[in-house]
């Protein structure tokens, strides 16, 4: 149940599939970064990277968070697993409120929630062998036993499609896709319940991206993992997600099932995003409506009043500057959307006859 917890207009959306109740609940999450200036490093402002996010994730599902650079999606992921300390709000993971947990308390939580980073070149220590990298979480948690630990690392390598002989090599001996597999093996070492995947395939070539995406889906099926999948690639997010949240300047502007988001988007920003993705066939050239937004994303240090998207929105009226639209179901729709003028539009539909020429 993503969306505002208290909505007067409608009950929260129906579950996508019959999975248990929830593994993660985030309420009113805020992460501000101070802007310091002058010789006394006085705080002169706040970058409002995450500014009031509600999110519920059920066990075994994949929730995709999609948005452009600077929208706060990476900060959101890192704050949820407390790599960054939240400014405000509540994070309940597996029944425990971890928002005020200290480092030591987080240790036990970290066994259950792991992160996979974007850059497979920067996230693996070049001086460690693959065995050491994948075995490190086990060592940190005192679970690496002689013989057994070795076997576990080899099992993990096989799980992610690498061979146990790779264990003695160093990261530089591997291609990008193989490195990302090593990163996934490391994340799986402690049998976590949930993975936060922060742009896990965007640094990889297309043919390799598909391999890693398939691996993630297969691992999820096998181990019942829950994924928070953060990415800017709308096609990959559609492929892997059960539900999707679209983020703009620190807030969710629209949430729903993948069907709802991609087939009946209601927020102008979601519609613009979908329409802006290059088509994948020259036959469709000029056959799809393209919304080209004016201007750039405003600074999160000084977001526009009211609706944050209004400065680039073709529908904006006076009310948009005055009132921040709540993320609730709106008339004519079946999922929460934060827009005063929400309306279904299908940017992926082909306009007119698409013919091969």
């Amino acid at each position, binding site marked *: 149940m993503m969306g505002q917890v208290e909505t007067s207009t409608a009950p929260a959306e129906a579950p996508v599939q019959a999975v248990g109740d929830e593994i993660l609940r985030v309420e009113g999450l805020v992460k501000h970064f101070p802007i310091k200036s002058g010789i006394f490093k006085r705080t002169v402002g706040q970058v409002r990277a995450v500014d009031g996010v509600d999110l519920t994730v059920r066990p075994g599902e994949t929730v995709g968070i999609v948005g*452009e*650079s600077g929208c706060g999606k990476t900060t959101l992921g890192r704050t949820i697993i407390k790599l960054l300390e939240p400014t405000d709000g509540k994070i309940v993971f597996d029944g425990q409120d971890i928002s005020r947990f200290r480092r030591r308390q987080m240790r036990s939580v970290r066994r259950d929630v792991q992160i996979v980073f974007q850059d497979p070149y920067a996230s693996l220590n070049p001086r460690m062998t693959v065995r050491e990298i994948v075995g490190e979480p086990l060592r940190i948690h005192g679970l690496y036993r002689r013989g057994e630990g070795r076997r576990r690392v080899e099992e993990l390598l096989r799980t992610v499609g690498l061979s146990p002989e790779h264990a003695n090599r160093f990261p530089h001996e591997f*291609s*990008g*896709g*193989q490195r990302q597999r090593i990163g996934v093996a490391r994340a799986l070492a402690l049998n976590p319940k949930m993975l936060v995947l922060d742009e896990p395939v965007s640094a990889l*070539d*297309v*043919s*390799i*991206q*598909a*391999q890693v*995406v*398939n691996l993630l*889906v297969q691992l999820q099926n096998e181990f019942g993992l829950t994924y928070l999948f953060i990415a*800017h*690639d*709308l*096609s*990959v997010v*559609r*492929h892997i997600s059960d539900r999707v949240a679209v983020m703009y300047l620190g807030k969710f502007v629209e949430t729903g099932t*993948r069907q709802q988001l*991609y087939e009946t988007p209601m927020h102008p920003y979601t519609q*613009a*995003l*979908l*329409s*802006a*993705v*290059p*088509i*994948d*066939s*020259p*036959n*469709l*050239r000029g056959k799809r409506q*393209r919304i*080209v*937004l004016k201007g*750039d*994303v405003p600074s999160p240090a000084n977001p526009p009043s009211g609706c944050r998207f209004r400065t680039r929105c073709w529908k904006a009226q006076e009310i948009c500057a005055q009132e921040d639209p709540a993320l609730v179901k709106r008339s004519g729709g079946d999922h929460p959307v934060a827009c005063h003028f929400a309306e279904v539009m299908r940017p*992926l539909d082909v306009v007119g006859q698409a013919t*091969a*020429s």
Partner: protein
Amino acid sequence: MPDPVLSVRDLTVEFKTEDGIVHAVTGVSYDVFPGETLGVVGESGSGKSVSVMTMLGLTPMPPGRLLSGEALYKGRDLLRMPKKELRDIRGGQMAMIFQDPMTSLNPVLTIGEQIAEAIQVHNPGTNDEDARKRVVELLELVGVPSASSRFDQYPHEFSGGMRQRAMIAMAIANDPQVLIADEPTTALDVTIQAQIIEVMRAAQQETHAAIILITHDLGLIAELADRVVVMYAGRVVELGDVHTIFNSPRHPYTVGLMNSLARLDADQEWLRPIPGQPPSLITPPPGCAFHPRCELSQGRALCRTDVPPLRDFGEGGLHRSACHFAEEVAAYQAATTAAVGAAHAS
């Protein structure tokens, strides 16, 4: 068909590294015709950038080494031209747009000064006032708002999208015949990318330049290219009209590349990746470099022993494929896309 504005023939470039000799580009040939957009597509390490940068004299030598080839621009070989002459052509009749506008603009000069300099270097008679007028025109053309006041701003005061617009303005400042765009939108967000695609279309309309679009993004190719060169492991594996390449490809790598894309407008149960890893360019596989990952090869000996030549499939060399079994690709494509289609339906 008119005469090509640029012809590359048998270009072979290698790099000396600590690990061995990297065979970056091997025997690459293609033509660029006036006013067209030629897409050069391939994954990292395919040689798509090196082949083009070498023509412009922008490949550092050493460690790079030109083993063979010529690049004929208006009948003259760019690869053997005196440096001074090549400099005159570069930024003038042949201009470039790079992936990262932040590193390709000079941070200590204003945007306007840099574009004006580009004009004045190639047109020494131009006075400052005329140059400024022309720059403002160019900035307006590429959609930089309040162009006359932004003339005096520095690159760091421009957003990524605006910088890329400024780069395009600079590239078209001297009415180029050939515009080389190396991953022009890769560093940009999708909504900004859509803006830049429009700007590139406008820039081409204005200058009638031929564009060489180097990218890994098949979507960008589908949007912009008239013809496509597909590269793998330093060689051209397929070449043809954009519709032909997308609708009836004749190389299993091209098919695999398109099959592995996640779709925006349909649900798939599984993606269909190309198996295996990209080849080493130091010790490339013998025969066809794609054979270890090729589902069509089925271990046939010919693929392992002989490098397949580029063979003609269309009239007049308009569609070429370097696959020993190119005749089987249509059936292979039908079978594999049917499998993807079935996944859509489920």
